[in-house]
């Protein structure tokens, strides 16, 4: 039986081989040494019909437990409006390549331009690239960028309150790239300014990466950071949740030179960790060190407004080993997702998302303290995510909550558990989570 994705009939193959002057498809591999031609049977299943595929994958998806998400830690369960998925699934967006041929890629180039514009609006910086793989790799690229911008310096300082996965990826890249890392300690759940000054005093610092909303959900107070960093001719880099930037002080307002983070919080499905999209933004003076794709506005031969990939002299296909980065793509479709999301939300919708998340998170926070099983860990301002201290066995707590349909109380330190509430969580869901904790207490399930 014919296979759906291959259009060739036997007659087509015969005619095409005739044109080539070959007698069989095997002959097309006569330049390959026979020892390398695979003659065995592939350890793969028999071909599956579309119905088989649907069944098999539904079964696998069904093996995941559907949980009500009360955790963030770098991936947030925000709502995705219904129109986004059908728009990004349009074949002209979905099945296009990178927009090298600008004349037939104006759709992609325009939304990238819009995306870049929106990222600058959220971050308060001048320029943004077309997106990176995810927040953690964007942070690693920012780290390498700070070296390229400051020349001859080798150290980068990371705040210990950054998300653990962001620190780990930066460490991986630093190890191979020859970047020396220093760590800025934490002070009552926030980045220590005194600790930063001590580290800076050791010299040779190219850049400092600190979070805006940190690993505990705390809103960092970065007053004085830019002055301290700039006094050492280093760059201040802020890792910020872009959703929160609709209401929180922006990296630009903190005096940052570079901002980076993960666009997942802008409505991207959790999707077990990806695809997401990292963003990277900077002040105008550093744009020629910005890695990755950048779309720019120009005019065509007839004077019409057009968009192209620009400043390509930075990039790997021109610069090869001298390029600022090896990245040669972006998470384009996810950038489109984010652009449509921000268009739908607008400034008021984004404010509302934050306000709803804030309200729900603070309600849960207070209710959990009310159970008597948790204590305040830091007592500092937070937005949608917070950490509590508990004497409970945390693995068991998390597992019991999971058994009851909740993903909550992720362990983020010894005796520290993390919770997160977005606008998707209702009061009923929050109450149900608290009831579940209280029931455990009553049944003595927690000791």
């Amino acid at each position, binding site marked *: 039986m014919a296979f759906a*994705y*291959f*259009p060739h009939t036997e007659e087509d193959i015969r005619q095409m081989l005739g044109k080539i002057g070959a007698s069989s498809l095997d002959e*097309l*591999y006569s330049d390959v040494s026979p020892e*390398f*031609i695979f003659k065995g049977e592939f*350890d793969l299943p028999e*071909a599956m019909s579309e119905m088989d595929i*649907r069944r098999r994958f539904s079964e696998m998806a069904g093996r*995941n*437990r559907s949980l009500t998400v009360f*955790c963030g830690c770098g991936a947030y369960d925000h709502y995705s*409006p219904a129109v986004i998925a059908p728009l990004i699934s349009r*074949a*002209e*967006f*979905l*099945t296009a*390549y990178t927009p090298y041929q600008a*004349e037939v*890629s104006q*759709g992609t180039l*325009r939304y990238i331009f*819009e995306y870049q*514009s929106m990222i600058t*609006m959220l971050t*308060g910086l001048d*320029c943004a690239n077309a997106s990176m*793989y*995810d927040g953690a790799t964007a942070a690693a690229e920012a780290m390498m960028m700070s070296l390229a911008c400051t020349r001859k310096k080798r150290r980068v300082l990371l705040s210990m309150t950054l998300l653990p996965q962001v620190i780990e*990826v930066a460490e*991986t890249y630093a190890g191979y790239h*020859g970047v020396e890392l220093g760590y800025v300690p934490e002070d009552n759940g926030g980045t220590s300014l005194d600790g930063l000054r001590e580290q800076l005093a050791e010299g040779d610092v190219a850049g400092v990466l600190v979070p805006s909303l940190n690993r505990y959900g705390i809103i960092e107070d970065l007053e004085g950071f830019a002055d301290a960093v700039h006094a050492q001719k280093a760059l201040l880099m802020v890792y910020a949740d872009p959703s929160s930037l*609709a209401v929180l*002080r*922006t990296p630009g307002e903190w005096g940052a030179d570079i901002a980076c983070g993960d666009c997942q919080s802008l409505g991207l499905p959790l999707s*077990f960790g*990806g695809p997401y999209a990292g963003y990277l933004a900077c002040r105008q003076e550093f744009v020629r060190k910005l890695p990755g794709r950048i779309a720019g*506005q*120009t005019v065509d*031969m007839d004077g019409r407004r057009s*968009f*192209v990939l*620009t400043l390509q002299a930075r990039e*790997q296909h021109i610069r090869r*080993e001298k390029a600022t980065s*090896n990245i040669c*793509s972006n998470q*384009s479709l996810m950038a489109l997702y984010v652009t449509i999301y921000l268009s739908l939300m607008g*400034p008021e*919708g984004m*404010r509302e998302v*934050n306000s709803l998340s804030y*309200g729900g998170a603070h*309600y849960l926070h207070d209710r959990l303290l009310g159970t008597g099983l948790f204590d305040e860990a830091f007592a500092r*301002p937070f937005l949608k995510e917070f950490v509590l201290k508990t004497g409970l066995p945390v693995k068991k707590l998390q597992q019991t909550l*999971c058994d009851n349909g909740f*993903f909550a109380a*992720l362990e983020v330190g010894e005796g520290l558990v993390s919770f997160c509430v977005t606008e998707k969580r209702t009061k009923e869901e929050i109450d149900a989570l608290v009831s579940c904790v209280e029931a455990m207490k009553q049944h003595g399930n927690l000791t």
Partner: protein
Amino acid sequence: MKYYDKLIFELSKEGRQGCSLPANGWPGDLGDIPQNLRRQNRPALPQVSEPDVVRHYTCLSGMNFGVDNGFYPLGSCTMKYNPRINEQVASLPGFSSAHPLQPDSSVQGCLQVYHELARALSAITGMAEFTFAPCAGAHGELTGLMIMRKYHISRNDLRRTKVIVPDSAHGTNPASAAVCGLQVVQVKSRPDGTIDVNDLKPLLDDTVAGIMMTNPNTLGLFETEISEIAELVHACGGLLYYDGANMNPLLGKVRPGDMGFDIMHLNLHKTFSTPHGGGGPGSGPVGVRASLAEYLPCPRVLPDGKGGFRIGREGELSAGRVSGFMGNFSVMVKALAYIWTLGKENIRMAGPLSVLNANYVKESLKDNYRLPVDRLCKHEFVFDGLADASSGITALDVAKRLLDYGFHAPTIYFPLLFHQSIMIEPAETESKETLDGFIEAMRQIAQEAASDPQMLRSAPHNTPVRRPDETLAATRPVLRYVPEVPDE
């Protein structure tokens, strides 16, 4: 395709909103967040209605060309058909709503996808184990090189800091090596782009970490001396890295693991049919031979010993964490659906049909376009401009004119071995009729070069915009929307 000139910001009007959110019953809007931690002005995001948004992005899509619109002969990019069933199963709610940090017991379905895909890719490539953390091909290359370095470092073989890259390689190869802290040593290629073993030999010593190769190479030619290259590189203590950019012609026919490669990456968005999405998300899984498995990045999916799976988060020899979670998960779902749809028999036809298509187009056009290396090719081949170069018509002119004929352009000016490279890759999902239409258009263009070169130099003529001024874009960069201030 119709020109549409708006940006979403230009549709904005104060007071509009394109989403409805639940009523806010919580007390105290943003309550106790101190003023100095808040932004001063609200962001200038567009204020548009939902129908505005739908129409705007639908109009933008009308200025784009994708594989679903027509033939996309883009060399080295493997623009094959992107099956829709894969999209559907990847967006099943059980997958799309899974949080990456959920307890292992609650995401057994996701972990099974990783396991099944690793098994399938091992069968197809001959590699023992895979990581799925890299989010793109270049990211996979970088990860592969990290594994290579970590291997040498863990053996205390610290002098191995050079990586050999053919001068015909994709630009990402040297760039990835540099990011990984390796020095790039170029090995000269012969006029046909294959590696000259005699040029390679003097480069091989105890400072070599390994070699990066694409096979078939960037001219679509199989490296016939691969056995000897593998022996030489291994004998000097180096590792062989296989850049999977050109894996498609080998699909179902030749396994990189059998050719002596130690580490490789695959582009799921090329060889395994997942959509390119206008530049991403892709996925660049890295496979290694069994002896290198412990160097793979963490976290990794491992059997839990009870018939299920767990996430292994630490490994002493691991190259490290390379992405925030475990890569672009939904892309893996799509690739697995593709492989299972093909099954053990159809996969044997995928590579050969792509090779048939490439050789058919090459043979049909070699009288009209200059073919610098006239021999059997694999999935792609390269012309060096028109056979009759007297008109001065360039590869760029040909590419732009093809857009008028309703085809996407081939890759041009790559590889750098020729001045007028036109690199053509017709994937196996293209029919003979489509290829005949393309061949006819290419012949027409060759005729037009003689009869009306001026028309070609100003092509395209029928696209939403015509050649953009790239110099203006680069010298006076406009990289974001700035509202026009109305005249007083």
